[in-house]
């Protein structure tokens, strides 16, 4: 397979300039920019500053990537690595029963060379794309021509499509005696005149259906052997369906949302088509026009971004105005109970970014990544879905939330890609600098986890620990935190921590112990613990140390306060430098502080 990407930038004077590239990747990165093939757009197609929607299809001998949203027409990238418009505009020529001329194609009766044709004939034309096996709709019907043992002479035939280079042939059709149009001839473009006398019962295939091009839409998916599109800016409440097994052909079938809500996203989950609006969603089932039905799935759960939906282990993670939901194909489960206020606050202040958000299933890290601001300085909401996955017979757990910060260039897109002949999928991101980057990079030789000059820190802050009780004194001398140990695998990597002792609250001055570079030597931590080997708890540490001796780092802060918290930080050291830490917890010993206080009666307030 090859990889494809779309780019956009401001036009030279105004508007947007867009391109479509494909490249043939290998495991050897980087790929030279010249290996990205700037693919020719169909004539007259212009890029617009929207995100593209992709819907792939592999049929019998054809492979198409149907695309919508980022151009002023719906496009397809084909198995011949060509960009074509979805659908071919029908011949515009007027068919007359006379000699053709100007914009008119003539169809006249002439003397036959054989027995000729008898009957009432209505002629039509169509375009045929031989490379992609695509056909345009029929032209407008010609006049009824009464033939009596005659031949038909078609003249002044068009030799090229006015706006599409893909048609290679012109086709002539005749509807005989009120029947459906049937193919009379197909000739390569360039032919000016065709004379034929195909007997009525010897005509070729019947024209399948009355079809037309789809309206330009924003979103598309493949569902039940149809292409489904939505986001028609003229009729935003419509969902359009192609003909069955003819994904480019629109036969007029569409459904509307019940209350006229505009469609904001489409998704296919467990064989169901889900139509999202800003605050509600519908489920569409069925296969043919006879059994297609749409019913309200959730009247109060919608979706804010089509591109933010990601399928994970068969479930859809859906960004909504309430938070992130998991959709199983039949029911929604709220995943955001622990961060719904933060989500809504971030959405409130960054509406444009949330409604243009996009997501990826980062299978290397077991996370759902949604590119939208959050967490103060974060650019992506990261939901580790490991706890979400059901245990056997169990329920869905809450995902583990964190945030990623933006690297040097703001991420514009995600794509999960595998190299030709390969099956492993890696996550890539598109930047705002014309660069595509592989995520989750690790150099197996050096241990380095970045090769793009990104200097960033990983930080995490643990909850406040309040021993509880009422030890008396002021808020800073309630308890004395004597010793502190941290379990951090940190081979060859510096890490830092900031300890704060006291109460929560921004207005309170915190005595702090900051920046223990890489903790203290492992030997010291081991030594101290060994001296306390009689302590039952410390025995546990010794067991731990036995299996992972570098995990334990020991400190003696001897700071007082009613509680304490720690913020950990580790800095990526740059290109080619090994970076690895793994933190699994912390512990401390504490005793009554310096002021007079009562006996502890509880270990928790």
């Amino acid at each position, binding site marked *: 397979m090859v990889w494809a990407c779309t780019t956009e930038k401001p036009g030279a004077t105004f508007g947007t300039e867009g391109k479509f590239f494909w490249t043939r990747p290998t495991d050897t990165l980087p790929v030279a920019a010249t290996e990205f093939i700037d693919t020719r757009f169909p004539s007259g197609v212009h890029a617009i500053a929207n995100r593209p929607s992709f819907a792939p299809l592999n049929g019998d001998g054809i492979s198409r990537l149907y695309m919508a949203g980022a151009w002023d027409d719906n496009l397809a990238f084909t198995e011949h690595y060509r960009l074509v418009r979805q659908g071919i505009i029908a011949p515009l020529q007027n068919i007359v029963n006379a000699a053709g001329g100007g914009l008119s194609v003539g169809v006249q009766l002439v003397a036959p060379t054989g027995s000729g044709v008898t009957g009432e004939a209505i002629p039509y034309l169509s375009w045929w794309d031989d490379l992609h096996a695509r056909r345009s709709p029929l032209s407008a019907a010609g006049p009824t021509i009464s033939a009596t043992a005659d031949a038909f002479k078609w003249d002044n035939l068009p030799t090229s499509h006015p706006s599409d280079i893909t048609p290679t042939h012109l086709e002539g059709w005749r509807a005989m005696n009120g029947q459906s149009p049937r193919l009379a001839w197909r000739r390569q473009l360039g032919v000016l005149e065709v004379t034929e006398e195909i007997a009525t019962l010897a005509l070729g295939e019947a024209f399948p259906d009355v079809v037309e091009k789809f309206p330009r839409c924003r979103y598309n998916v493949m569902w039940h052997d149809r292409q489904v599109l939505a986001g028609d800016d003229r009729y935003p409440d419509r969902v359009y369906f192609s003909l069955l097994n003819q994904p480019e052909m629109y036969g007029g079938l569409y459904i509307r949302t019940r209350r006229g809500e505009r469609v904001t996203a489409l998704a296919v989950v467990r064989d169901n088509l889900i139509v999202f609006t800003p605050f509600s969603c519908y489920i569409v089932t069925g296969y043919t026009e006879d059994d297609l039905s749409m019913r309200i799935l959730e009247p109060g759960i919608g979706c804010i971004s089509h591109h933010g939906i990601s399928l994970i282990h068969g479930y859809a993670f859906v960004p909504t105005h309430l938070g992130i939901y998991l959709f199983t194909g039949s029911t929604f489960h709220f995943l955001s109970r622990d961060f719904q206020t933060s989500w809504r606050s971030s959405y409130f202040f960054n509406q444009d970014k949330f409604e243009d958000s996009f997501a990826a299933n980062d299978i290397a890290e077991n996370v759902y990544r949604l590119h939208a601001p959050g967490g103060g300085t974060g650019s992506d909401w990261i939901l580790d879905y490991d706890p979400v996955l059901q245990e056997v017979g169990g329920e869905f757990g809450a995902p583990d939330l964190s945030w990623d910060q933006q690297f040097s260039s703001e991420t514009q897109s995600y794509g999960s890609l595998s190299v030709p002949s390969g099956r492993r999928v890696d996550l890539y991101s*598109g930047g*705002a600098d014309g660069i595509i980057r592989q995520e989750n990079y690790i150099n197996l030789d050096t241990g380095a986890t970045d090769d793009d000059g990104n200097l960033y820190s990983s930080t995490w802050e643990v909850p406040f620990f309040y021993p509880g009780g009422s030890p008396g004194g002021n808020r800073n001398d309630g308890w004395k935190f004597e010793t502190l140990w941290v379990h951090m695998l940190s081979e060859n990597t510096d890490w830092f921590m900031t300890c704060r002792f006291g109460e929560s609250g921004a207005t309170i001055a915190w005595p702090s112990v900051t920046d223990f570079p890489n903790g203290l030597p492992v030997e010291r931590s081991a030594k101290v613990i060994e001296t306390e080997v009689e302590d039952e708890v410390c025995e546990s540490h010794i067991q731990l140390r036995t299996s992972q001796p570098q995990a334990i780092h020991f400190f003696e802060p001897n700071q007082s306060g009613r509680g304490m918290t720690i913020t950990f930080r580790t800095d990526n050291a740059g290109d080619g430098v090994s970076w690895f830490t793994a933190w699994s917890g912390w512990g401390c010993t504490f005793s009554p502080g310096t002021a007079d206080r009562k006996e502890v009666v509880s270990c928790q307030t």
Partner: protein
Amino acid sequence: MPPANKPNVIPREGGSRNFRTEMGGLEWHGSMPDGDPSTVPQGRLIRGINIRFRRGRVVPRKGQRRLNETFIHAATAKVRGIVDFQVGTRRSLYVTGTGCPNLSLSSGFYLGYADQDLESFFAPLVYYDFGTQGLVMGRFAGSLYLGQDNNVRKLQLVDAPFGKPPLAQSGSAQDVPLYTFTGFTKISAMTEDDFSGYLFMGVDNGAASKITVHDGLTFIDDLTGIRPPTCFFKWRDKLIAGFAAVADHIRIRDEGNAPGTWTTVAPAGSDTINAIAGVSYRDDGYLIDGTTENVWKYSGTTLNPTHALPATALLKDICVFDGYLFVAYTIGTTPNARIARYDGVTNTWVDVHKDLTAQDPLVTDIGTLEGYRDSLWAGLVKGGTGTQAYSPQYTTSGTWTVRAGLSLTNISRSMVY
């Protein structure tokens, strides 16, 4: 997870207490940014930035590396969509030639492919290290058929696993031998005609050659007692067969069951036609001459030379790509490998549309020409060995990518299937 704090606080002697959350205690889970931080239970973070969870542990987020070192489109271009394009039904450019890359320069014949969808973009697939007459190809009913000497073989396509070369995977014999034309020297041409639903084969036995068809079950002689066809191509709803100069004509077959009706069309003028390849372009049949510089045109009524390439040009192949007609030829003592282009809309010939030898002086021959995906593709001889080259997409007069020689004699035929 355990409730907040309580299970982890353990009294110690002397009033000191011990608190622990480390291994054996809690598994750490995600951030709880909402509400009062003091209510966040142990085992949950107040906030995590650029981290990942590993079954209760916290590790840093990994970084990135570039797919493209320098920008595409522009330094300010936003990459707004990334997708991999999975091609379901394989569509490769199949080639044949003499020898086999890395095995033999001149002995036997190979069938190879070029395909961007596969890990080896260009690789030999099958090597027949025997035989004397070369290979011809034809697709029929969803399979690739080979004419190897006087044998008809149906290729059994075997894709190599990731990281392995196809020839090592199989390669010496991955076909079903279907039929041997005893008494005939070789199969000279092969094509599918979907109007009639047959695989057409020209079978060479000098003046007693024939055209035989295969319908998937049986072999039927369609026309006997003729000179061997040198090429087939579809034109309108008919099939045209080209012949060498000794026949000095072409034959045209209407669709229908075998044996069919073939009409002989001789040149209208005094020129002799020695057809070696042909193609339909803008509703006319075009053939190239293996002896003269003539490109022939059959309009449906007459067969005439329509254009003469420069004197001493030796025509090699003809194809249609991107709305144009292309003719590959060599010329001169070097010789130069060139491509001519005909625009049927403006009726304009450009004899030296592309001179591959001018671009790369080591190129001395061009054996085949084919439109494949978005490029025009050529089989060349470079530095004495066969290789491939392809145009910069539709800019066929631009600077081509010419690959290094492949340790084989040539690439002589090609087809997309």
